[in-house]
C-alpha cells in the first residue's frame, strides 16, 4: 500500500515540477522580448558558457578523434580497408560523438555552473531583490542564459567534430601512414551534408535546449541552502546526461532508422 502512496506522490511531484519548469520557460522566452537589453546580456553569457568551454571541448575532441583513428585503423587494416578511416572517423563524430560527448561535457562544465550560479543568486536574495526592483528575473537572469546555451552548444559541437577529424588525421595519416589523399577524398564523397552534418546540428540544438532548460530551472527552483544548491547541481548533471542519452536514441531512430 505504502508503495502505491509513494508512487502516486512521486508522480504528482514530478508532474508539478514539470509544470513549474514550463511556466518558467514561457515566462523567460515567450513573454514580451526586449532585444535591446537582451542582446548584450546574452553575449556576456555566450562568453561564459560558450567561449570558456572551448578548451575542454577542443582537448576532448582531439583525443577522441585520435582514439577513434587508432581503434579504427587496427580493425580496418586487417581487411586492407584503412583508406576508409577518414569517413569512419568523420561519420562517427558528426552523427554521434560530436553532439553527444559535447552535450555531456557541456552539462558538466556549463550546466552545473548555471545551476549553482542561479541557485546562489536565489540564496542571497538577488532574485527576490530583482523582483522588488520591478525587474523580472526570468527575463533578466534566465532568458539570456537559455539563449546563450542554445546558441553556443551547436558551435561547440561543430568545433569538437572538426578538431576530432584533425586528431584522426594526426594519428591515422601522420603516425600510422594512411594515405592523406584517401583520408580526405573518401570522407568528402561519403559524408552527406543534409543527412550527416545537418542532422548532427539538429541533435545538438535539441540537446542544448534540454540541458540549459534543466540547468536554469534546477537553479531557479532550488531550495536556497547549501544542501539545496548542491542537490540541484547534482540533479542538473544527472538529469541532463540521462535526457541527452535518451533523446539521442530517439533522434537517431527518427533520423537514420527509417530509410
Amino acid at each position, binding site marked *: 500500500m505504502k508503495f502505491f502512496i509513494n508512487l502516486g506522490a512521486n508522480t504528482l511531484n514530478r508532474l508539478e515540477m514539470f509544470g513549474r519548469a514550463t511556466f518558467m520557460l514561457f515566462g523567460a522566452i515567450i513573454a514580451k522580448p526586449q532585444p535591446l537589453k537582451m542582446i548584450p546580456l546574452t553575449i556576456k553569457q555566450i562568453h561564459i558558457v560558450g567561449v570558456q568551454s572551448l578548451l575542454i571541448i577542443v582537448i576532448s575532441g582531439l583525443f577522441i578523434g585520435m582514439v577513434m583513428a587508432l581503434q579504427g585503423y587496427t580493425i580496418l587494416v586487417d581487411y586492407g580497408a584503412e583508406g576508409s578511416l577518414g569517413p569512419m572517423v568523420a561519420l562517427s563524430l558528426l552523427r554521434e560523438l560530436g553532439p553527444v560527448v559535447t552535450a555531456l561535457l557541456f552539462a558538466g562544465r556549463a550546466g552545473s555552473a548555471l545551476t549553482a550560479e542561479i541557485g546562489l543568486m536565489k540564496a542571497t536574495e*538577488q532574485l527576490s531583490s530583482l523582483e*522588488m526592483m*520591478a525587474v523580472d528575473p526570468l527575463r533578466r537572469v534566465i532568458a539570456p542564459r537559455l539563449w546563450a546555451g542554445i546558441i553556443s552548444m551547436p558551435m561547440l559541437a561543430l568545433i569538437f567534430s572538426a578538431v576530432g577529424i584533425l586528431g584522426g588525421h594526426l594519428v591515422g595519416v601522420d603516425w600510422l601512414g594512411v594515405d592523406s589523399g584517401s583520408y580526405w577524398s573518401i570522407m568528402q564523397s561519403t559524408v552527406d551534408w543534409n543527412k550527416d552534418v545537418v542532422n548532427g546540428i539538429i541533435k545538438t540544438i535539441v540537446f542544448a535546449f534540454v540541458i540549459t532548460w534543466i540547468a536554469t530551472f534546477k537553479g531557479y527552483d532550488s531550495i536556497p541552502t547549501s544542501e539545496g544548491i548542491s542537490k540541484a547541481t547534482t540533479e542538473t548533471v544527472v538529469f541532463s546526461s540521462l535526457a541527452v542519452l535518451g533523446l539521442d536514441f530517439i533522434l537517431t531512430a527518427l533520423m537514420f532508422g527509417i530509410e
Partner: protein
Amino acid sequence: MENLIEINNLTFSRSGRIIYDDISLQIKKGKTTAIMGPSGIGKTTMLRLMGGQLVPDKGDIKFKGESVPGMRRNRLYEVRRQMSMLFQSGALFTDMTVFDNIAFPLREHTKLPESIIHTLVLLKLQAVGLRGAADLMPAELSGGMARRVALARAIALDPELIMYDEPFGGQDPISMGVLVKLIKALNDALQLTSVVVTHDVTEVLTIADYIYILAEQRVIGSGTPEQIKNSDSPLVQQFLQGQADGPVPFHYPASSTAQAFLGNES
C-alpha cells in the same frame, strides 16, 4: 492621516503552518512604522506580502487603496517601482561594482543619459557616506558597508515606500548607529514612508513613529513608542525586556521531564 498600506484581516499559512491569523495593520504615509516580534514568526513574510511576492490565503493588502494580491502582473511591476526593499543580506549583485549596483535600477527603469546617472549614483553614495567605495566589488565590503550600499540602491529611484528587513541584524554598534542615523535622516529628507521589520528593541524605539508587535500569529501590541513602553501586556513586556521565560516559554514544547528522563517518552 492617510494610510499608504492597509492590511485587513490577513490570514497566511505556509506548508500547513499558520503564520498569520486574521491580523490587520496600517502603515501611515510619511511615517516610520516598525513591525517587531520574536524570530521565526514571519516578519520578513509580512514584507513579501506587502510587495506582492506572496499571496495571502484570506484578507486583503491595499497599497494606496489598490489591492496588491488582486493586481495583474504588469500592474504589480509598475507599482513595485514605487516601493523598494532593503534585504537582510543586502542582496547586492555580486558580479557588479558598487557603482553599477546603484546604477542598475536607474538604467533599468529610466532613459537618463549616462552622465546624469553618474551624478545621481555619486549623490546617493555620498548620502550613505560611501562615495569612495564606488569602484569596489560587493565581496570587498564589510557587512555594514554592504547594507549602506543596498540602502543607496533602495533609494536610487526615489521610492515612496521603503521596507527594511532586519536592517540592524548582525551589525557592530558603530555600523548600527550609522544605519539608525541614515534611516532617520533619509526619511526626514525624502519624506519616505518606512516599514522596519526588526527585533532590535532599543534602536527601533528611537526611530519609529508607530510600532506593531507580532507574536503567536497575531498583533499582541501596537502604539507609539511611549505607549508600547508603558504597555501592561506581559507578552509585550517580556519582549521589550528580553526576559528568558514568560508568556513565550523558554522550553520548546516537550513531554514532561519525568517522562523524558525515565525513558518512556512515547
